[in-house]
Each structure stands twice: as structure tokens, then as C-alpha cells.
């Protein structure tokens, strides 16, 4: 057993060493395979589209895949007449770059109209070409880019708002959340301001996805998209119906808009009270007392069944006649009679009885204060006893007195 384990271990070590050796061999082989001299120079994109407010900045990549180090000179060989082109590295204008063997360098091509007065790029198609060659001129390579500058209207189309659920349904008490994907294809980071046009009384707010803070603007990186949640809250008295919203995302250079819709279904609400407004009653132990409860449908949808439940002390009886209210139309009022019978051994004082009125998607709690008073019947019996005693005393006075 033990031997076998040792063999396995040994095998593993050998295999590992073999692997290492192969890797090293491959490395030397690639170095050995490299040609004596070889460079590659190319602009990053063959063509780009810009808006009038953009600036033209394109990376120029230079690679040395030869075995010897090279100094590469860059020359602009083609440009529009009234444009100036600069090859820069970290802001410094350069004429070439030294690239060691198997290394890469990145330069930057920046172009602008020669006339500094022109702040916006004139629309049109322009071609730029650069040529890279080694200092001895043995190797050279050229690369070109076609720049299309489009008008402002076309540029704005490169921002888009998309939503997977443009229409939401729900009762008026709810909040509605639209998830909006804002895509920035302008090729530049930008801060977008969000604005929503709502029907009167509605409120709209914007939040980043999965966060609770409210925002009004958001930075979106070039050629990327972000998800923004728009939450709309209907006014408390909103009627059922369809409501249209317009969302706008605007950056200094571009804007986009989208339309979303909310369909409000009916609301559910109940109002419960008594006719006098009093929520207290006075009774005695074991004596049934009744109170009439009025139930109003304060929503905009009908309630098919309203039930009642009581939170009460043990041994108390609370009954409802009728036990349920059926078909309560919006705005209609119906009543039920509550009869409360306190327990025989209830204490003198105030008890709380709470009545739950439960309808469809709406419930209402009503609390009653039930004051238990001491029965006064016993009081009169006591008075009677005292009267009897006093009468007895008076009789004794009469019979025995004045002797």
C-alpha cells in the first residue's frame, strides 16, 4: 500500500518536471523561430464615425516581433488639406519611438482642423494615413483610417433607451417600476440627465438598479450601457385608466427618449366606523351590548365579500350579524351589528376589543374601548341591608327607650 503511494508520488514529480521542460523548450523555440527583424504598425480602427463635438483621437499600435531592437519613425503620409495631425505620446509630440525586441508601444494620433476658430468638426469623410519605418528604412508599414463626421442629428441617435416592459398594470395604491437600459454609443463618456414627463399628480423618480438612492443624472461610459429604474407613484385619488409617460435622457451632446405606459386597475379600500363616530361603549359584566358598524367601500373596485374578526379577551363573546357583507359596490355603505358580551368574571375598568374588517386586498382595524361598570343592583341591596339595620335599631329605641 505504502509502496504504491510512493510510486504514484514519484510518477507525479516526473510528469511535472517533464511538463516544465517542455514549456522551456517551447519558449526557446519561439525565440528561435523569430525572424531577424520584424515590426508591425497599425492604427487601432480602420474607420470611425464622430459627431461634430467630438475630437479625433486614435491609438497607433507598434509591435516589434523581430530579434533585434528597432527605432521606428512615424510619418503622416495622408491627411485632408486643412487639418493638422499630430503623433503624440502622453501629450508630447514625437516623431518616432524605440521598440525593444518583443515589445509593444502605443502612440496616439490626434487630428483637428488647422483653423483653431473651428470648434466643431465639419461634416464629411476624411482619410488619414501614417507610415512607420525603421531608422535605416529597411522595414516600413503604413496604415490608414477613414473618419466620417456626421451631423448633430445623426450623432444623437447613438444614445438609446430601451425597456423590456414598456407597459405595467396594477392597482392605484401601488408603485410602478420601469427598468430602463440606457446605451451610450457616442464613443465618449458622458453624464446623462434624466427627466420624465408625467400626467398631473404623478411622481417619478430615478434610481440606479438595485440601489435605493434617488438620482437625477448618471455617468455612462463610452459604448456601454447602464440600467436605471424609474419609479412612478400615482396620486392617491388616481382613477383607473391608462397613463402615458415620456422618459428623456440627455447629455450635452446627445439625447434619447422612450415612452412607457401604466394601466391602473381599480383600488381596494375599506372605511369602517360607527354612525356616531364613538368607538367606546359602556356595559356591565355578562351583559350583552350592541354597536352598529358601518363599512364603506372606499376603493374603486367592488368588494365581493367582507368578513369580520375580533381580537377579544378570553371568555368574551363577540358576534356579528350578518357575519359577512357581500357585494359591496364602490362607495356603498353597509352595516353589521356587533354584539359584545363580556365574561362574567371580567374586571371593572376598560378593555380593548379590536375588530378586523377584512375585504379583498384591503383590511381595516377598528378598536373599541369597552368600559365595564360595576352593577349597581348590589348597591341597592346593600342600602336595603343598612335600612333594615337602622329600622331594627329604631324599633329597639322605641320598645326599650324612655325607661
Amino acid at each position: 500500500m505504502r509502496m504504491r503511494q510512493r510510486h504514484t508520488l514519484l510518477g507525479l514529480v516526473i510528469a511535472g518536471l517533464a511538463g516544465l521542460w517542455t514549456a522551456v523548450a517551447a519558449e526557446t523555440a519561439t525565440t528561435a523561430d523569430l525572424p531577424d527583424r520584424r515590426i508591425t504598425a497599425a492604427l487601432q480602427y480602420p474607420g470611425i464615425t464622430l459627431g461634430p463635438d467630438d475630437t479625433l483621437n486614435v491609438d497607433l499600435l507598434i509591435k516589434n516581433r523581430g530579434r533585434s531592437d528597432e527605432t521606428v519613425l512615424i510619418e503622416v503620409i495622408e491627411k485632408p488639406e486643412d487639418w493638422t495631425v499630430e503623433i503624440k505620446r502622453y501629450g508630447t509630440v514625437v516623431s518616432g519611438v524605440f521598440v525593444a525586441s518583443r515589445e509593444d508601444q502605443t502612440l496616439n494620433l490626434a487630428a483637428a482642423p488647422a483653423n483653431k476658430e473651428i470648434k466643431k468638426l465639419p461634416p464629411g469623410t476624411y482619410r488619414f494615413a501614417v507610415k512607420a519605418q525603421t531608422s535605416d528604412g529597411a522595414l516600413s508599414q503604413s496604415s490608414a483610417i477613414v473618419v466620417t463626421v456626421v451631423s448633430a442629428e445623426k450623432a444623437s441617435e447613438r444614445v438609446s433607451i430601451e425597456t423590456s416592459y414598456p407597459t405595467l398594470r396594477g392597482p392605484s395604491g401601488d408603485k410602478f417600476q420601469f427598468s430602463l437600459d440606457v446605451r451610450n454609443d457616442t464613443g465618449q463618456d458622458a453624464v446623462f440627465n434624466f427627466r420624465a414627463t408625467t400626467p398631473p399628480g404623478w411622481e417619478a423618480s430615478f434610481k440606479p438598479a438595485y440601489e435605493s438612492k434617488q438620482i437625477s443624472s448618471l455617468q455612462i461610459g463610452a459604448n456601454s450601457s447602464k440600467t436605471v429604474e424609474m419609479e412612478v407613484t400615482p396620486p392617491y385619488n388616481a382613477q383607473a385608466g391608462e397613463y402615458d409617460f415620456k422618459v428623456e435622457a440627455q447629455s450635452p451632446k446627445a439625447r434619447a427618449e422612450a415612452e412607457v405606459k401604466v394601466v391602473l386597475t381599480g383600488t381596494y379600500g375599506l372605511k369602517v366606523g360607527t354612525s356616531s363616530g364613538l368607538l367606546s361603549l359602556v356595559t356591565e359584566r355578562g351583559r350583552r351590548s350592541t354597536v352598529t358598524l358601518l363599512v364603506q367601500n372606499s376603493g374603486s373596485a367592488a368588494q365581493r365579500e367582507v368578513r369580520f374578526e375580533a381580537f377579544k379577551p378570553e371568555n368574551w363573546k363577540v358576534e356579528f350579524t350578518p357575519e359577512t357583507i357581500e357585494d359591496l359596490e364602490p362607495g356603498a355603505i353597509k352595516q353589521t351589528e356587533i354584539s359584545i358580551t363580556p365574561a362574567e368574571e371580567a374586571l371593572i375598568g376598560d378593555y380593548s376589543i379590536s375588530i378586523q374588517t377584512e375585504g379583498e386586498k384591503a383590511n381595516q382595524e377598528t378598536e373599541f374601548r369597552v368600559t365595564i361598570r360595576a352593577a349597581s343592583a348590589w348597591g341597592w341591596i346593600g342600602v336595603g341591608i343598612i335600612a333594615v339595620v337602622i329600622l331594627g335599631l329604631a324599633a329597639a329605641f322605641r320598645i326599650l327607650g324612655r325607661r
Partner: protein
Amino acid sequence: MWTICRKELADHFGSIRFLILFCLILMVALVSTYMAATHVREALDGAKPSQVFLLLFTTPGKFFSLVQFIALFGPLLGIIMGFDAINRERQHRTLGKLVSQPIYRDAIVNGKFLAGVLTISVALLSMMLLLTGLGLMTVGVVPGIEEIGRLAIYLLVSIAYVSFWLGLAILFSVLFRSLATSALAAVALWIFSAFFVGFLADLAADALRPIRNPRDPEEIVANRRFADASSLASPAVLYSQATSTILDPYRRTRSNLVLTGPMERLSLERFERPLPLDQSILVVWPYLTLLAAMTLVCFGLSYVVFMRQEIRSV
């Protein structure tokens, strides 16, 4: 009758006995005010309870509150006033002389009882007024109408209770010729009702409603209820229960032990509010009635016995 009453009052107020009594009252009032005042201040630091003024009378402090003091030693006051009412006259052989005066015979016992009641009233009233005044000074809480009403009823009940013992002492003084016998009889009854009835009630409850399973609330409640009910045979218990309900507006029931379910407790705690005065009175009304009736019956008995006694031969 009024002449007898006036003479008796003069006797009471003029005697050394009354001077000692007065000193006792003053002392009790001072001590209980001091103790109550310090404790009420502590109690007021936290949540403010309503009807703070009543706390002055019911806060026990270190030793006792005024209410506890009157409940325990009030009967002694009545006994001191009454144990020698009739038989002293007999011993000094003045009863015959008294009866030979142009006064009716019932006027003697009525007058003596009335004078005793008046003295008791003066003593209790002065004690309470002293405490009220001192309390106003030290605590600075002004009593409301409700509290004054409660205190007035408490005073009435206390006078009736002490008068019960006065009536009992007069009854014994009519029944027994010897001063010592009547004093001893009254004191023995007082000690029995104040100290032993509760103990006996516990014994009786354990014998008749034993607690077999100490975890069964039903059995414990039955046992306690029986003990409470049987200890009501003592007027002292009757009195202390009645007055504690009158003076504590949060007491909702006569019994010491109440079984409430969890829902009932929640429901009760929702509006925790002191009872109005009339409800408190109605709660203990049976006790009040019983106390008043007992006092009257006691006096009536001594009246009847005295009227039927042969006194000329003495």
C-alpha cells in the same frame, strides 16, 4: 343625651389618656409623612402616576403607612374609648346616681357612644389633616377633587370601623362587671381578628381546598379564593380590603388574586386608566355595607342589653 355626651367628651378631652393619645397621633403623623414623602419623591422620579396625593397615605416607606397604622391600631383606639364606659360607672357606684338624675336611661348609652364616635372622628380627622398639611409642604402635590373624595370616604369608613370596635367594647363593658375582663375580652378579639384570622383561613383553605398539584392554576386559585373568602370573617380584613380599593384607583376587583388569560391582559393593558370614584365605591360596596351594618348591630346589641339590665340593685 346631649348632656351625657358633653360630659363624656369633657372627660375624654380632659384626661391624661387623651393627652397621650394626642402625642401618639402627632408622632404617627410626623413619622409616616416623613417616610411617605421620601418615598413618594422617589416614585415621582420615574413615570408620573395619577393621583399622587393618595400615595402619601398608602406608601409604606420603611415601617408603615398611615393607612396600615390605622388598620392595625385603630381598633385599639376604639377599645380604649369604650372598654370602661358602663362598668366604670358601676364600679364607682355612680350609675345609680346618674340614673336618678332627670335623664332617660337610653341617653346614657347613646351619649357615651356618641361621645366616643366624636372623639374618634376628631382623632382620625386631625391625623389626616396633619398628614395632608405636612404632605403639601414636603411633596408639594395638590390633591384633586377625586382624591379629596376618596380621602373623605376613607375617613368615613375608618370612623365606622373604629366605631365598630368602640361599640364592641361598650357591649363588653355592659356585659362584664370587671374592667379588666371587658378590656381583655375586647383586646383578645382584636388580636384574634387582626392576626390569627388570616392564618386560620390559610389552614382552612389547605384543609378544604388542598393544592395537590402546585402547577395547576385552577387549584391555586380555588385555594386562594377560599382563604380570602374565609378571612373576610374578620372585620380587620374587611376594612383593609375596602380601604385599599378606595385609596388605590387602579384596583379593579375585591379579590387579591385574579386569573386573567394572556388576551385579557393585553386587552386590559391597552387603556390603563384609574377607575372613577363611583366605580371604586361600587366595587367594594358590599364590604362598606357590611362594615356599617356591623357597627350599627354592635351598638344596637349593647343598647338592648343595657336597657334590659337590672342596674338599681348595684
